[in-house]
């Protein structure tokens, strides 16, 4: 796959239809992969695409599409939803991006691999239902369902939106996805149990802002938490407002716009399952206001800027879900 | 218990707030037993309010109400005069030796066809 992608990129660079390529390259370690822009064919030697390439590249296209010339972007299905949502918010100039859809069958989670006692990872490849991990100690085999990241196990869609061309096979929307199971499980708890759960998670937050920086919905020119007029821009630690409310406000700000790509949880150095907050909003929106998938439809008004005359009253919260 | 206290009790038992009455007299305009009554439905409501229950309790009118609920149905203020009358009747017969009907009287009242419903009802309404 990787070679085919590089070949296609070279073609497009050569015929002048694009002037840059958006992809991934290795960092210090093989699993430490980050999005990268390749300015010419020569730089493509660093281009990688393997089972560690989970990063969502759509956010980078905001700035890239403001530059001269057209950029080629390889988008996984989940990236393409983010991309489409950003288009809807007028953040990306569609004319400046050539999109190639690439399939994704589930990316590996390095933490899960390590948890299995596999260290010294040099590379990864896919073989049927297993990942073959190349390590300094030799090859290790691990079942995909044990090593795949959580978000991929509950993947909502293997189908792209808005691509110029496809490489590989186009997938389907997965109506069977169990992505709301964990949210439902929490909803079924008592408030005390939920509180303890979230206290256990959120108390670990170090406010590194990684979730915000990676999130393709958090693309504000200047974040409200950095806005001196918002009165909540203080960076001081401990019990200040920003500290306590950051995740609630952030989830609220992306509500209805979050495509559920799961990047927030992937990058969290404290492994806080932040995506559950977003999924709670998505689940509520689906249940209260009808099914909605951010990015799926360019013309549909998103739920927070929409209403019906007979929407439920906020009092519904007292009645539905959750034990007393 | 003085009259005003009894009046409050009557309001409690009946669940009726006689202050809601605007004295239109529709209950009395509607009552099928009106001519046989000394006190009429609207007066029940007013007397219950002003605390003059003793007058009502001594009157035969409380046994004349047919419980047909026409006054309840048609009252524009939702006052339910029939409930007041029932409450006054209960207040009376709940006292000692105040039963309006005793078993000994019954045989004389019977005829071949009378349904037992009539007996049961009469006991329920007029006897402790």
């Amino acid at each position, binding site marked *: 796959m990787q070679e085919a992608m590089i070949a296609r990129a070279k073609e497009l660079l050569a015929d002048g239809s694009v002037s840059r390529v958006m992809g991934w390259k290795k960092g210090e370690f093989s699993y430490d992969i980050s999005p990268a822009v390749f300015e010419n064919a020569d730089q493509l030697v660093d281009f990688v695409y393997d089972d560690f390439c989970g990063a969502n590249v759509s956010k980078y296209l905001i700035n890239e599409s403001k530059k001269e010339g057209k950029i080629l972007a390889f988008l996984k299905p989940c990236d393409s939803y983010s991309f489409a949502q950003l288009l809807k918010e007028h953040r990306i100039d569609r004319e400046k991006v050539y999109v190639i859809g690439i399939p994704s069958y589930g990316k590996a989670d390095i933490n899960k691999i390590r948890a299995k006692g596999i260290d010294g990872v040099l590379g990864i490849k896919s073989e049927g239902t297993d990942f073959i991990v190349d390590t300094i100690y030799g090859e290790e085999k691990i079942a995909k369902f044990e090593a795949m990241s959580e978000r991929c196990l509950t993947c909502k869609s293997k189908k792209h939106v808005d691509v110029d061309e496809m490489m590989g096979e186009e997938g389907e929307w997965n109506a069977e996805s169990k992505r709301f199971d964990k949210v439902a499980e929490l909803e079924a708890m008592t408030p005390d149990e939920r*509180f303890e759960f979230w206290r256990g998670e959120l108390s670990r937050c170090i406010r590194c802002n990684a979730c915000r920086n990676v999130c393709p919905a958090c693309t504000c020119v200047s974040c409200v938490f950095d806005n001196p007029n918002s009165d909540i821009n203080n960076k001081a630690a401990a019990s200040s407002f920003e500290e306590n*409310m950051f995740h609630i406000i952030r989830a609220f700000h992306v509500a209805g716009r979050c495509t559920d790509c799961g990047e927030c949880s992937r990058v969290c150095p404290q492994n806080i399952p932040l995506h559950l907050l977003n999924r709670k909003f998505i689940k509520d929106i689906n249940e209260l206001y009808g099914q909605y998938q951010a990015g799926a439809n360019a013309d549909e008004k998103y739920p927070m800027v929409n209403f019906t005359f007979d929407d439920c009253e906020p009092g519904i919260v007292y009645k539905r879900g*959750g034990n007393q | 218990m003085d009259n005003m206290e009894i009046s409050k009790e009557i309001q409690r038992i009946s669940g009726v707030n006689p202050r809601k009455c605007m004295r239109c007299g529709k209950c009395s305009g509607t009552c099928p037993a009106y001519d046989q009554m000394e006190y009429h439905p609207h007066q029940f409501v007013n007397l219950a309010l002003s605390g003059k229950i003793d007058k009502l309790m001594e009157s035969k009118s409380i046994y004349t109400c047919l419980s047909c609920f026409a006054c309840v149905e048609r009252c524009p203020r939702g006052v339910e005069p029939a409930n007041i009358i029932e409450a006054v009747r209960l207040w009376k017969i709940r006292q000692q030796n105040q039963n309006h009907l005793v078993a000994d009287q019954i045989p004389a009242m019977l005829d071949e066809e009378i349904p037992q419903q009539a007996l049961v009802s009469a006991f329920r309404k007029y006897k402790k």
Partner: protein
Amino acid sequence: MQVEEKEFKPTIVAFCCNWCSYAGADLSGTNRLQYPANVKIIRIPCSCRLNPMFILRAFQRGADGVILCGCHPGDCHYTTGNYYARRRMTLLFSMLDFLGIEKERTRVEWVSAAEGQKFAETMNDFVATVTKLGENHRLEDLRCKKQ
């Protein structure tokens, strides 16, 4: 030994839209309908001006309950403001509940300019509900480690 228990008086912030609910609150004053002094009203132009941040801020600064009052759906002075407020508050309250924070501490009530009675009743009821819940710790504790 006698322990003096100080009666818990919750701090309640009521956001009222200028056109209906603030006028409704005025009307309950004009009619001398009592409700507890712990309720403090902040006037906003429309229920849709209520940023969820204001509610969180109030909680963080020590409020025990926050209530939003606006025009009845369909009667918004700005036509549609309360419809948006309704969605926003529904989702926010649901999220607070999801985090294990007592959902009874937040409420939305539609109060028209003619409903002075309803305003007073709502406030009495809300104060009673929040008083029963006691002090509001959870939101503050959410980021603190378990003792």
